[in-house]
């Protein structure tokens, strides 16, 4: 079950293609799965970035940020994940909005693909914007280009496209008088907040895919709760997409950092130990 059939990495973004026929059949754009590398791993929510119902596979992009994701990053083709649960969350609302802007950073570069594809199929004009620090850090561009009318880039160092981030491209578009009927953003919380600010003054309907800490993913625990429009919402069952103009960002930033101390502490000691082991093995090989 849940065998890894393909795996690659672009600058710490690990593409993992997994056998999960049930999910590949049922999943819709905007939904996620919860995965566990091993029996002792954390349960980690990951956006389903593509799927092949016929082959029974789903595509996940995972960033190595802690001990559980480190293990996922180290798994190989032929290995199996211990658990893949889903599809979870409410699918993106897809209809003909007119002009749709999709912004993605980090795993969101891959994650916006199915939403872009569905929006395109629904007759929208799709403008995709992706951001990275440096031009070589982009991935999945070709696929995204195929489902977008326009693909725009933003890089921190200016090596490709606009120098800056997704919201800088949005500001440029608005200055140029580009009409935007709906925006979707997916990426780190800081990016989601900044992009929501960019669309606020023009009151552009804005959906952000929140990535709060989750445990069960079915509404049972409330770990992922966020304040949206002054009300408690569960990102796992009410979301993951919410109105970016209504999210209490300060609260979300703080809740996302809740386990930073525990996780970083263990991650550092864990990585260090394994690096030592690796070097030791290299020494052995040299004799």
């Amino acid at each position, binding site marked *: 079950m849940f065998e890894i059939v393909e795996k690659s990495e672009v600058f710490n973004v690990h593409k993992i293609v997994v056998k999960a026929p049930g999910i590949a059949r049922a999943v819709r754009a905007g939904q996620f799965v919860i995965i566990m590398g091993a029996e002792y791993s954390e349960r980690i929510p990951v956006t389903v970035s593509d799927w092949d119902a016929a082959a029974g596979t789903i595509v996940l992009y995972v960033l190595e940020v802690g001990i559980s994701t480190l293990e996922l990053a180290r798994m190989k083709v032929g290995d199996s994940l211990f658990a893949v649960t889903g599809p979870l969350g409410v699918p993106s609302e897809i209809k003909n909005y007119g002009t749709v802007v999709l912004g993605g950073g980090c795993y969101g570069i891959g994650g916006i693909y199915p939403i872009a594809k569905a929006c395109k199929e629904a007759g929208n004009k799709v403008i995709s914007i992706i951001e990275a620090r440096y031009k070589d850090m982009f991935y999945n561009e070709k696929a995204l280009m195929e489902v977008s009318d326009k693909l725009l880039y933003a890089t921190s160092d200016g090596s490709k496209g606009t120098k800056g981030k997704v919201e800088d491209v949005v500001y440029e578009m608005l200055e140029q008088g580009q009409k935007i009927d709906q925006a979707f953003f997916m990426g780190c919380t800081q990016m989601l907040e900044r992009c929501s600010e960019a669309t606020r003054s023009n009151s552009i309907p804005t959906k952000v895919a929140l990535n709060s800490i989750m445990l069960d993913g079915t509404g*049972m625990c409330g770990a992922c709760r966020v304040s949206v429009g002054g009300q408690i919402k569960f990102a796992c069952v009410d979301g993951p997409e919410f109105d970016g103009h209504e999210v209490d960002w300060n609260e979300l930033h703080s809740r996302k950092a809740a386990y930073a101390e525990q996780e970083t502490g263990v991650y550092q000691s864990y990585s260090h130990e394994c690096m030592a082991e690796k070097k030791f093995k290299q020494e052995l090989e040299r004799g």
Partner: protein
Amino acid sequence: MGLTAKERMAIERNRMGEQPPDLRNRNFEEVPYGYTPEEAVNEAKRCLNCKKRTCVSGCPVEVPIPEFIALIAEEKFVEAARVIKTKNVLPAVCGRVCPQETQCEGQCIRGKKDNTQAVAIGNLERFVADYERENNLIELSEVPKKNGFKVAVIGSGPSGLTVAGDLIKLGYEVTIYEAFHRGGGVLVYGIPEFRLPKRIVESEIKALENLGVTIHYNSVIGRLYKIDELFKGLGFDAVYIGVGAGLPIFLDIPGMNLNGVFSANEYLTRSNLMKSYLFPKYQTPMIIGKKVAVLGGGNVAMDSARTAIRLGAEKTTIVYRRSMEQMPARAAEVHHAKEEKIEFRLLSNPVEIYGNKDGWVTGMKCQNYQLGEPDESGRQRPVPVEDSFFEFDCDQVLVSIGGQANPLITKTTPDIKINKWGYIVTDDWGRTSRQFVYSGGDIVTGAATVISAMGAGRRAAKAIHEDLMKESNETTGDNGK
């Protein structure tokens, strides 16, 4: 064996040995050690084998209590276990977590004058189930001939396991869909290791698998498959929904989303299911509070408080709106909690949780309560005392004030009737408004007990059998497909 009633009456209730409080509050091992065979036989001899079997009528699944106790008195422990299993598929679980004092033992004639002197039915049930399991004497029931019908059970908690166990023995092909990566529902995510060791749940599930029950883990029905697809695509003849109570409730007061405020569900799931008490060997992290406030007075609140103390809290306090007498928790849990130095701040309720600039809990503002007129449940209603507030020092708050119905299935299956709170409406036998869809346990009643969920599962299994047999007779004129 021929003891007279007087001789039986003269025997004092046998107490189970248990880990001393100051040792057990630092580990997750089970608290009571269980009876020795001698203690069990001695306790069994206290049963008067009454003509009027009030204990049996106090049991939601009608375990033949006097019969199994008589077998224990004759040292026929395995036979006793099998007598229980004719009615209860999870005796090792129920012996540990049933509220016996309000059920079988509450009806025991020997407890009429002094309720601490009722026959220890729960302890005896636990003893024989453990004896059978630990000595590898669990009987492999014969796998019955298949009757051709397929039943899907959603959720592997107490009610789902009961339905699966009953139907597999009647010849049904049974498939359980479980959302988590491990089976048992609340028995594994909610009830802590020190109260119900997980190896016991695993063994019960293994027994069902040996009988031929298939379990699909990581399967969230409503998302992976809708109920309609279970019938049409996957060819099930009946579906049982036993998904539990679901969504936790948070108080509508400032500070509920601060870091350090957990639902009891989250806190217990991290510790129990994800084993974060073994962090970092198990990788799910846990925030360890120093001064922990637990809001609520039920079993889940006691479990949360006792978990907090084991994880290293310096001080753990139950903050409850009503008084001690009105606490819904099992007497044994309150007793154990007190022994473990958990404090009780009764007739109090927070009105605000304070946080620091980084969003972490720093304390609470609480209001004093008094008891007023009885409410519809018969308990005196807690009424806030005006202008009577106090500050409560804590850095972690565990919210254990109950739950609401999880809408995952009912939202995706609109033809299943729900009540105004979102719980599934059924008849006394678990039949929902949709033909061949049944439901039971907390998703029907709201948060209740393991044994009442099992009782509901048992009744639903009967209804499923009856309805499918009737259907098959009508369509084919015989008892098979």
